[in-house]
């Protein structure tokens, strides 16, 4: 039996749920605290996976991982803060549009991406533009929201910043695994090490208290990191057992889980145009994953 499809779906569900609860915890704790301690918990899970796998690191693979992590930890802080301050049903799909970045990287090398990737980019960007439009009431007035348009603009900037960081993560991890033939687990381990270092440095510069022990919230925060690492491992295993194109699309649909949880548990509602934008952004991400 081919386990690629259920494992790919499970990875997407785990990623989406971890993101949702990461955003929820960031409504109670500073996003930097949630990102740092969840990454620590995830790193412990990763260490166990490395010990079990018995694989050996390659210097080039780990080096590319270190570069990848320099952006992914920062992207996580932006993402969690965006989820905490904004509408999760918008922030999650916009952040997932980081899948556009690898296509841009292909263009930078002077190559032309294939038609499916080009269609995915156009669809995803159209979706982002649609969800970015302010929701209007029946009287065609923007709704009153704490912080007003300035806040929604800031949240969108954070979502786009996280998209850029996650997209760069894909590019550098691909360079470490495909380009340098590094063991994926060790590339991710390198990324985790540098992302923790970056988060520590940011905390030292801006707010040392953000790295304090999160007290009784350590349980849920740790579960977020373990869920995220578990999703990575599920995806890696799914990719080795199933069709990578199918598994990639299933895994890339993780914002669906975040959107469903936000609607179900938080009662988030979007305008018709924003709903269309979310659907387009997700379709674009799926097309990019399949390309």
């Amino acid at each position, binding site marked *: 039996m081919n386990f690629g499809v259920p494992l790919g779906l499970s990875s997407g569900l785990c990623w989406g749920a971890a993101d949702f609860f990461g955003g929820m915890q960031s409504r*109670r*704790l*500073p*996003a*930097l*605290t949630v990102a740092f301690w969840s990454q620590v918990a995830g790193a412990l899970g990763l260490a166990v996976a490395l010990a079990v796998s018995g694989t050996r690191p390659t210097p080039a693979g780990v080096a590319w991982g270190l*570069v990848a992590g*320099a*952006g992914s*930890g*920062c*992207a996580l*802080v*932006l993402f969690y*803060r965006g989820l*905490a*301050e904004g509408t999760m049903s918008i922030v999650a799909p916009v952040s997932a549009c980081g899948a556009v*970045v690898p296509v841009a*990287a292909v263009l*930078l*090398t002077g190559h032309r991406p294939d038609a499916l990737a080009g269609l995915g980019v156009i669809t995803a960007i159209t979706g982002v533009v649609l969800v970015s439009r302010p929701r209007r009431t029946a009287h065609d007035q923007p709704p009153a929201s704490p912080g007003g348009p300035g806040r929604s603009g800031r949240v969108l*900037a*954070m979502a786009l*910043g*996280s998209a*850029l*960081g996650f997209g*760069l993560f894909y*590019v*550098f991890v691909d360079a470490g695994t495909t380009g340098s033939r590094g063991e994926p687990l060790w590339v991710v381990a390198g990324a985790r090490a540098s992302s923790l270092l*970056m988060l520590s440095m*940011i*905390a030292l*510069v*801006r*707010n040392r*208290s*953000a790295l*304090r022990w999160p*007290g*009784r*919230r350590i349980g849920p925060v740790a579960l977020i990191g373990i869920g995220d690492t578990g999703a990575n491992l599920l995806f890696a295993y799914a990719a080795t057992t199933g069709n990578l194109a199918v598994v990639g699309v299933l895994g890339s649909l993780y914002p669906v889980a975040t959107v469903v949880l936000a609607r179900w548990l938080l009662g988030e509602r979007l305008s018709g145009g924003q709903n269309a934008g979310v659907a387009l952004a997700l379709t674009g991400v799926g097309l990019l994953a399949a390309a």
Partner: protein
Amino acid sequence: MELIWLVLALLVVDLAAILFAVDSRPGFERSPRPWARRSAGG
């Protein structure tokens, strides 16, 4: 050449994280333990 653009983009993300790292939301900027104050305040 493309590596320069990628590294510049990486710096943009890092800079954005540095700028947004300190939560300006009420209850986040002073106390590192907002949950403790919340429970103390009822």
